[in-house]
């Protein structure tokens, strides 16, 4: 009789005297045992049964649950198709849907189908809090939280990639189903340990942007399964998502801001030119490293930072924001800005609820619930809401500053793209004129949503 055991993210086969003819098993000379990654649990079970090896499964602590969605759920056609495709594929693989298209419902349906202890993993604490709310409400169960100051593991638990990476060797035996939100984060070398150290036989990945510039999404097939369903934003727009228009508003710097900006930008650019540095990739990294030791590089680096700060927080942007708030005072508005200080300034000046990564779980839920219910009509936030948090029924978005990331911008757009009766959505983008920021905005607009 052999014993299959879970040991810190790995599986060990005890009392099996031969060499197992399964490539995932390695001889561990330290503990004198056969050891495999927990990822291969399912494969090992199949092998043990096929070989008629009598064994005791002491590895799994997966529990079966009564999971039933309590609310009335009208799944859209593509959501149904997605879940079905996943089930047809043995409950393994990824579904790619645009932000704001209701990936969460797909996940809930998957959980209801599997009915086993489940770990849901996402990139940010903010998303974690949101999933926490949705899952608690949908199934009427106590949901565990791992991360963000919490360490409460239950049969259904939400966590972040960072926390799961740290703790998976302790809890990899507990869950039958793994769900990865924004799965394009997973192929990072460290995060790969999460699916590898878990014995969960079934797995689901969700994202709007599956492919990674580094090509590492190729690794997902082994860890999760292949992409089994995909719809792009263009295929869904108009049909399921509200129409929207974008308004780009150019902002002039004040005379003083302009002087400061020019001065700092000049200093930085001179340095760059003298040194022959290209503005990206390894050159930039080298420059950042140099700035720790070389006084001139350090000054140039600070000048770059100052010039960026000027354009991001331009005084005139507040003026324009004020006029937008006046014009849209009956609408539901979300203001985005990358800079936390600016979020709190706006919150204090216009008395608008603020949501940043400093906001704690309880307050976060209050704010989002109140915004959803309509008790609050305005919300100002930093980039913590960038990925996937769906805040329904906003029809005006104001982007006060941003970086040159197409993914990020697309996801911000997604926030106001939610379908709602006869609603037209507007996105204002406030860009400083004649500065580096216009270029950033250009890069941002290359993304699919604008074409």
């Amino acid at each position: 009789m052999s014993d299959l055991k879970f040991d810190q993210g790995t599986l060990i086969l005890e009392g099996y005297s031969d060499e197992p003819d399964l490539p995932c098993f390695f001889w561990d000379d330290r503990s004198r045992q056969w050891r495999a990654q927990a990822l291969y649990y399912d494969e090992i079970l199949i092998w043990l049964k096929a070989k008629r090896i009598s064994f005791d499964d002491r590895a799994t602590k997966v529990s079966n649950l009564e999971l039933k969605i309590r609310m009335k759920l009208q799944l859209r056609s593509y959501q149904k198709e997605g879940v079905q495709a996943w089930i047809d594929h043995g409950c393994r693989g990824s579904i790619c849907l645009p932000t704001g298209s209701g990936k969460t419902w797909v996940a809930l349906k998957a959980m209801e189908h599997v009915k086993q202890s489940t770990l849901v993993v996402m990139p940010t604490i903010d998303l974690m809090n949101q999933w926490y709310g949705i899952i608690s409400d949908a199934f009427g169960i106590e949901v565990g939280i791992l991360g963000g100051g919490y360490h409460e593991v239950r049969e259904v638990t939400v966590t972040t990639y960072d926390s799961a990476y740290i703790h998976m060797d302790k809890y990899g035996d507990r869950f039958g189903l793994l769900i990865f939100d924004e799965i394009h984060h997973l192929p990072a070398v460290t995060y790969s340990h999460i699916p590898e150290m878990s014995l969960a036989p079934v797995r689901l990945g969700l994202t709007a942007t599956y492919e990674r510039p580094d090509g590492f999404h190729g690794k997902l097939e082994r860890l999760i399964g292949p992409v089994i369903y995909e719809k792009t934003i263009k295929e869904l727009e108009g049909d399921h998502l509200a129409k929207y228009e974008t308004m780009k508003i150019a902002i002039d710097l004040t005379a003083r801001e302009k002087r400061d900006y020019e001065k700092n930008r000049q200093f930085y650019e001179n340095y760059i030119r003298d040194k022959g540095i290209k503005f990206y990739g390894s050159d930039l990294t080298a420059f950042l490293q140099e700035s720790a030791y070389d006084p001139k590089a350090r000054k140039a680096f600070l000048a770059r930072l100052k010039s960026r700060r000027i354009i991001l927080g331009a005084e005139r942007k507040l003026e324009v924001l004020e006029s937008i708030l006046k014009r849209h005072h009956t609408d539901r508005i979300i203001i985005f800005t990358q800079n936390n200080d600016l979020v709190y300034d706006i919150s204090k000046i216009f008395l608008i609820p603020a949501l940043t990564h400093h906001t704690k779980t309880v307050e976060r839920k209050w704010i989002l619930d109140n915004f959803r219910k309509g008790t609050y009509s305005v919300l100002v936030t930093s980039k913590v809401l960038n990925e996937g948090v769906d805040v329904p029924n906003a029809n005006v978005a104001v982007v006060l500053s941003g970086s040159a990331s197409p993914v990020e911008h697309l996801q911000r757009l997604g926030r106001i793209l939610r379908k709602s009766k006869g609603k037209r959505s507007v996105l204002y983008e406030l860009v400083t004129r004649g500065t580096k920021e216009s270029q950033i905005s250009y890069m941002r607009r290359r993304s699919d949503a604008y074409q």
Partner: protein
Amino acid sequence: MLTSDLLRYDVDEKYITPRYLKRKHAVKYLKIADDLIAIYHAHHMKPRRELDEALSEYESDRVGYKILRGSVKILDGFVHYQPGEDLNYPEFRKRLFEFVETYRPIVRQVDLIHHHVSEDVLEQFNSATGLKAQNLYGDLPDQQILYKIDIKLTAEDLIKRYNLALAQGILYRCHKMDIKIWDGYKTVFQYLKLAQLMHKTHRASKAYLVEIDGPFSLFRRTQKYGVNIARFLPGLMLAQKWHMNGLVNTEKGQRTFVLDQNCGLTSHYKKSHPFDSSVEKAFFDNFKKRKTAWDIEREAEILDLGDVVLIPDFKLIHPDGREVLLEIVGFWTPEYLEKKLAKLQRVNRKDLIIAVNENLNCSRKDFSGPVIFYKTRVKVKEVLEVLNRDK
């Protein structure tokens, strides 16, 4: 602990070496450490933001900001921040924003159509609810007050902690560590166990070689255990004579990080007590006094059982080359005893004498080798009898 952006090190063809704060620049660094500690004290009961501003002003365009920020990070571990007002801030904001909703839009200056500015609305909220806050976001990390400074730390301590943190920071990226220890086995293995690491032990004449990594290291190189290895380092440093080789991933590929007892770093961990109990101490002292050919050494051998080790309390050595181990099983909890017995059964060595407290719930047949039962003390005479019987 230092984050990777604050690490300072050199990488050559073979080695990675931290840039420690060196003794020859001591005057300069002691001044900086003193300054930083003074800045903290000057901001006692002030908002963290002001402290941060003062620190970044001190930093200004100074080169070597990594040293400053690294030191600040370490200092921050010795202070406590808390909100300035005794107020439930989230609750306050919730009620305020619900209240404000009927006054929107709030503007910065009143005009013919818009006549609500934030000051007025806040006042109306105050008269309606009696609630007031100096700072709407006084609970935010950077708005909190530097409430308690428990820096008994001197400038010199700070530099020591900094240097240690630098070495530990490099170990975060370590995927395997090889150590050699000449003494202090029990302490070192205690910290190894505490750090949840795996080990493979080899005997090397007067010392032991131990290869250290984690379960998953079997499949591929992983830095997953780097944090554990870093946590273990000050434990290793408690040995009198030691050497370590860490294999570390760097931007330039794998490099070796080497340290030994002469590295100048200081451990702040506690050494385990020289004797587990007074029974052991008494036995050791009595044995030393006794005139016998046998010599006694403490914790001189490591028995590697795979996942755990057993380090017997004593090793008894005869000039003719005979060596016998002695383990004293004192009074412990039933769970501990059960584990201990299981461990001893796995050792299964004839040259291991076990002395058991007779109040413990076990009998001679629980052990395969020679056993002595004792009441309050292990008698040297009885041990010598067993030793000479086996001759």
